[in-house]
Structures are given as structure tokens and as C-alpha cells.
């Protein structure tokens, strides 16, 4: 991807400069993941020719005063299964130098950035997904006074071990009116206004495909005591690309979130509508290829294997999502709270298509059809629903428990890009109990059940975890497809784990079967293939 020698020389010169000026500070981290694979035809785990695959990332940072510089070395020998095979070989893809003093903050090299909620621009790093969309170029932030900030950047996005073809230029401004308008300083409310412009240029041999694509956003945040309102509207110009089947329909997105909180009570109501907002550095990119922007999912963040069995992935081409949540802690020693208090949470998510009126005859060679859509209209197609109730309670000094019920309706055709599967309806129950044997020893039992008549039928899950603070944990997990209509496929996925951690170093081994599935972070998902073997993770910060 880049010349490793050049990067090392750049870094060493910078480090020497810092060290020549008296002490600097060296810090960093390292993460190593390795997996040994065995064929397991029953679960669809294939032969892996290498036998062992390994990914390592090591970050080093020099810092002195207002100056810091860093790099990240990556080694893929080969990349762990389930991650894109274009992560390959050894390289130092990420390196930067950064200086900030008084009103200026300047970065050259690689950097991450987010404007507002990220729907117009967000470059970020999520290694569990194999997602890294840093920008490589330069960024300047200028803050003339408190509560006013301007940002300008230009660069190319990372594309696996190379760069994406498009060049990004972007500008963002934000002003906190309470800090800067005399009249508002005495107000209890705070109002923050922001605006962004992002441009992507990618050369186009076809005069019908625009080389420049512009996107603009406005955002407003109002807060007063425990009340918060966040509104954002984004527009994108004509951007025919692989994701939208090369239509010329302009994109837009709107977000409106309201929340209220006080001690013991949290309430949230959010709505988001997206129309043709897939925005990438290369018009032929798709899937987990890096995006310029980010689409936060507005569904509940599920934490358990079976509540995440069919996880919802955001649909940048179009979705209308609504989410409402209320959580309350019944006080200690109250009738419903009991001796230690009881926490109850209710959450409902609704995701539908957007309204689209297709233009007759306007179908292109990619199968894309032009359409009209209203600014705030909802379509009839159900993409996802879930209804959840969760209760957390501490019974005694030694015992605490959790009970969760979730009903989910998941449109498998839309979310996974398939056809013929329809909507999968599921009911999931999670029951968890933790017993503190001694102050530093605890044992947890977790049972889950997913009931469905569709796909592979119902599943059960059981986990026993023993922890010995502060260093050790041991766990045994089994997932059992007891409801599979084919008796020969009512398989167990048994997995043992143990780990050791001390301060900022952590090691973990997993031994056994991993079922095929999908893992998501923030509405962005990655397919996980079935595997059988041993996996190892080591991470440390210094």
C-alpha cells in the first residue's frame, strides 16, 4: 500500500526530533488474532489450506507537548476468515503527524473524522468488522474562540491496502450560540448550529456520470436541563453508483431525536429517514467497502447471541426508522424496587421502506429505475420490527438476575439482499443469573431461547462463566439448533473459552465450534463463516 521504508524513516526522523527536545513519551498498543482451522463438514466449515491464519496490528505514538506522531503496522498472514481477503501482506497504512496549539489543530497523514451524526461524513475504525475508512491527506481545525469551530480536510480514503479512487474535500462549521451570543449566555437552554459541505471527485470516462458529487448538511442541537433535541438534514447531488444501481435520483436524509433524562429515568424517541444516501469514494464499491458517510441504526442494540441472530443492517438506499425507549429504575426499598432497586426497560423499533413512485420506462442497463419520493413519506414494506422488555434486579448481596423478552420481525430478503425468504418472526427469551461466591469469585449462568417456525427453526443457548478477579475467566457455551426440521442438523455448537488479563494486557483462547452468522456494529454488518478449531487473541496497551 505504501512504502514501508519511507514511513519508518519519516517516523524515526519525527521521533528523533521529539527526543532531541528533551523527553518525549512513547505509547502504543498491539493486537494479535490468530486462528487454527479444522474442517467440519457438518457445520459447513471448509478446509483452510493455510491451517493457521493470523492478523496483527501494532500502533506506536510519540508525543511531546503539543506535538504527536504515530503509525500503525499491520500484518495479515492470511487475514482471519470472514474478513476481506484484500487485507493482505505487511504494511504501515496509517501514519500521521499532529500539532495543536491555541486555536489551531493540524494533522497531516492519516486521520479519522466525523461531522454531526456522521450521515454526511464519518471516517472511522472498527476492527471487529474489518472496517477502516481513514482519510489520508490533511486536516485543519480552527477554533477562534470557545464554542466556534471550523474544520477543513482533503484526502483519499483507505481502500484495504490501497486508496480509493475518489478524492474527498470537506468543510464543517459549528457554533454554540450560548457561548457566543450575549443575550443567550443567561439562558438555561443551549443551542448549537452546524453545517457541512462534502465533495467527492472521481474521474469519469462517461460524460453522463458526474465526476463531482456534492453533499450538504445542516444540524441543530437544543438542550435544556435533561431535555435534548437533535435534528439533522442532509442532501446529496446526483451520484449514480453500484449501490443505487446507477440512478440519478438525488439523495437526502433526515434525523430527529428527542430525549429526556433525570436520575433513574431515561426516555428516547427518534426518527430517521434515508433516501439514496450511499456515499462512497468509488462508485463501483459495495458491501463493507469504505463509505464516506455512516448510517447509524435506529434499532435496539442487542447484546445476546440469539437476540442478534438476525441483526438489522441499515439500508442506505432507503429506510424509514422509528425507535422509542423508556427505562426506569424503581428505587431501593420501594415496593417494586425491593431492597436494592429494580431496573425496567421497554424498547420498540419500527423500520419500513420509503415511498417510491417509479418513473415508467426509465430503467437503465444496471436494472436501476428512476423514481420520485417525498421528503418524509414512509413505504409499506416492513423491513424490521422489534418489541423488547428487560428487567434487571439485584436480589441479595450475592445474587442478581436479568430477564429479557424480545419479539422480532426481520425482512431477510431486504436486509441480506436475497429473495424468497420473506419476513422471519422470532420470539427470544434471555434469563441470566450471577452468584458472587466470594468478593472476587463469581459464577454466571445464562440461558437463551429463540422460537421460530422459519429458517432452521428454534435455537437454544446456554453459558456458564466463572470469573476470578482480577485476572481470569473461564466459560463454556453451547448453541443448539434443537428446532431444525432435519433431525440430522439439530447440531450443537460447543465452545470453551478462557482468558487472562492483567492491567492493559489481555489474552483469550476459544476452542470449539463457531456457527455461521452475522456480526454487526452500529448497523454495519459482516458475515462470519462457520469454523471449528482454536482461536487466540492478545491485546496490550503500553
Amino acid at each position: 500500500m505504501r512504502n514501508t521504508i519511507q514511513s519508518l524513516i519519516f517516523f524515526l526522523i519525527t521521533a528523533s526530533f521529539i527526543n532531541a527536545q528533551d523527553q518525549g513519551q512513547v505509547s502504543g498498543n498491539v493486537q494479535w488474532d490468530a486462528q487454527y482451522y479444522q474442517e467440519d463438514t457438518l457445520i459447513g466449515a471448509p478446509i483452510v489450506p493455510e491451517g493457521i491464519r493470523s492478523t496483527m496490528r501494532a500502533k506506536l505514538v510519540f508525543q511531546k507537548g503539543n506535538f504527536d506522531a504515530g503509525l500503525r503496522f499491520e500484518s495479515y498472514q492470511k487475514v482471519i476468515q470472514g474478513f476481506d481477503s484484500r487485507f493482505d501482506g505487511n504494511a504501515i497504512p496509517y501514519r500521521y503527524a499532529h500539532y495543536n496549539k491555541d486555536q489551531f489543530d493540524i494533522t497531516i497523514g492519516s486521520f479519522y473524522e466525523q461531522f454531526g451524526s456522521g450521515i454526511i461524513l464519518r471516517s472511522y475504525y472498527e476492527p471487529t468488522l474489518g472496517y477502516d475508512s481513514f482519510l489520508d491527506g490533511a486536516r485543519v481545525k480552527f477554533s477562534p474562540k470557545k464554542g466556534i469551530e471550523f474544520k477543513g480536510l482533503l484526502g483519499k480514503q483507505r481502500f484495504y491496502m490501497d486508496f480509493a479512487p475518489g478524492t474527498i474535500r470537506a468543510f464543517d462549521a459549528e457554533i454554540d450560540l450560548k457561548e457566543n451570543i450575549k443575550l443567550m449566555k443567561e439562558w438555561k437552554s443551549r443551542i448549537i448550529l452546524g453545517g457541512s459541505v462534502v465533495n467527492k471527485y472521481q474521474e469519469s470516462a462517461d460524460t453522463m456520470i458526474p465526476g463531482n458529487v456534492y453533499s450538504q448538511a445542516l444540524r441543530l442541537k437544543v438542550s435544556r436541563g435533561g431535555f435534548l433535541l437533535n435534528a439533522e438534514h442532509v442532501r446529496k447531488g446526483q451520484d449514480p453508483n453500484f449501490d443505487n444501481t446507477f440512478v440519478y435520483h438525488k439523495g437526502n436524509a433526515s434525523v430527529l431525536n428527542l430525549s429526556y433524562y433525570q436520575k433513574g429515568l431515561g426516555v428516547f424517541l427518534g426518527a430517521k429517514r434515508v433516501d439514496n444516501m450511499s456515499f462512497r469514494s468509488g462508485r463501483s464499491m459495495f458491501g463493507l467497502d469504505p463509505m464516506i458517510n455512516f448510517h447509524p441504526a435506529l434499532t435496539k442494540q442487542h447484546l445476546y447471541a440469539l437476540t442478534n441472530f438476525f441483526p438489522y443492517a441499515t439500508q442506505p438506499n432507503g429506510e424509514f426508522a422509528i425507535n422509542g425507549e423508556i427505562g426506569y429504575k424503581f428505587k431501593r426499598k420501594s415496593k417494586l424496587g425491593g431492597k436494592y432497586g429494580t431496573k425496567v426497560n421497554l424498547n420498540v423499533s419500527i423500520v419500513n421502506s420509503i415511498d417510491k413512485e417509479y418513473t415508467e420506462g426509465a430503467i437503465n442497463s444496471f436494472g436501476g429505475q428512476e423514481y420520485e419520493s417525498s421528503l418524509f413519506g414512509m413505504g409499506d414494506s416492513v423491513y424490521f420490527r422489534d418489541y423488547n422488555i428487560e428487567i434487571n434486579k439485584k436480589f441479595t448481596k450475592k445474587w442478581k438476575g436479568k430477564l429479557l423478552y424480545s419479539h422480532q420481525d426481520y425482512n431477510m430478503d431486504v436486509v441480506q439482499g436475497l429473495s424468497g425468504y420473506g419476513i422471519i418472526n422470532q420470539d427470544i427469551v434471555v434469563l441470566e443469573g450471577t452468584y458472587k461466591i466470594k468478593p472476587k469469585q463469581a459464577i454466571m449462568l445464562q440461558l437463551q431461547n429463540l422460537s421460530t417456525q422459519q429458517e432452521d427453526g428454534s435455537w437454544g443457548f446456554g453459558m456458564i462463566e466463572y470469573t476470578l478477579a482480577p485476572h481470569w475467566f473461564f466459560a463454556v457455551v453451547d448453541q443448539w439448533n434443537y428446532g431444525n426440521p432435519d433431525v440430522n442438523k439439530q447440531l450443537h455448537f460447543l465452545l470453551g473459552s478462557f482468558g487472562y488479563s492483567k492491567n492493559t494486557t489481555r489474552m483469550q483462547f476459544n476452542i470449539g465450534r463457531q456457527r455461521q452468522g452475522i456480526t454487526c456494529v452500529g448497523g454495519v454488518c459482516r458475515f462470519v463463516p462457520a469454523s471449528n478449531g482454536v482461536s487466540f487473541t492478545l491485546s496490550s496497551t503500553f
Partner: protein
Amino acid sequence: MKKFKFLSLIAIAVALLSFTIVGELNKDVPSMDIKTLDGSTFNTSQLKSKYGKPVFVSFWAQWCTNCIKELNAISEVYPDWEEETGVKIYAISIDSRNQEQVGPFAAKKGWEYEVLLDSNSDFFRAVGGTNPPYSFIIDGNGKIVWAHTGYHEGDEDVVKSVLDKYSK
């Protein structure tokens, strides 16, 4: 043979990394701007307690089960810790989505920490975080003196013992 090679590699890595299992640190806190719950700017140089007392900073997210367990466990003893050590606790959310849900989430759990937003994980990366839970302690001189990753039931006692040391 492959299994043996694999295990050998692991053993070498563990041996090498054992040198990094350090007890005490003495690192500067990176100075950068993150956000408060109402969207205003908060510079990390402000991560301070009163009168030179220690600060405990914990990175968490709504999807991080062990982060929530750690912060729930500490919330039960936070008033006692404040009284005994003068500690101030900051809970910094690295949730990338629905930052407007962070305040209600912390409130319904009954947490009394100062909650901040690091939605693109800039500060998390700057202090060397890899996977949450990741927490560290700043002493009265503004130096990071201790950090840990992960959480087991009872780890809060280890945190308390470190706070006791740096509250004198």
C-alpha cells in the same frame, strides 16, 4: 506439526508481551476536545478532581456488556469512594450512534458519573484503548498512573485500592 507451530508462536508472543505487563504508568493525558451530553466542547485537560485527588475514567458503550457491569458495580459504591478518596469519575461513551440515547441510558441505570461523548473514539484511540471496557486513573498531578482492560466481578476492589494509594 501445524498445531505445534501455532502453539509455539503463541508462547513466544506471550513471553514477549509479558514485558509489557507493567504495573505503574506515568503518561500524560492527551489533550483534545470531546463533547458533553448537551453538545458543548469539553477538553480532556479538564479531566480533574478537586484538591489534587484522583480521577477515574472509564470508556463504555451501550453495546458493551462488561462496561455496563463495571459501571453498575462502581455506582453502588461511588458515594463511599468519593468520601474516602475524593475521586471524581468520568464515564466516556464511545457509542457511535444515537448519542442522544447516552444520557437517558446512564440516567436509567442510576449512574451519577459525569458522562461525556467520544463518538468517533478519538480520545479512546489516543489513550491506547483497543477494546472496551478500558479504564484509567489520573493522579493529582494530571498523569495517567494506572490502566486496565476488561472487567470481572470484584475488579472494582482493585480500582479502589489504587485510588486509595493516590488519594494520600
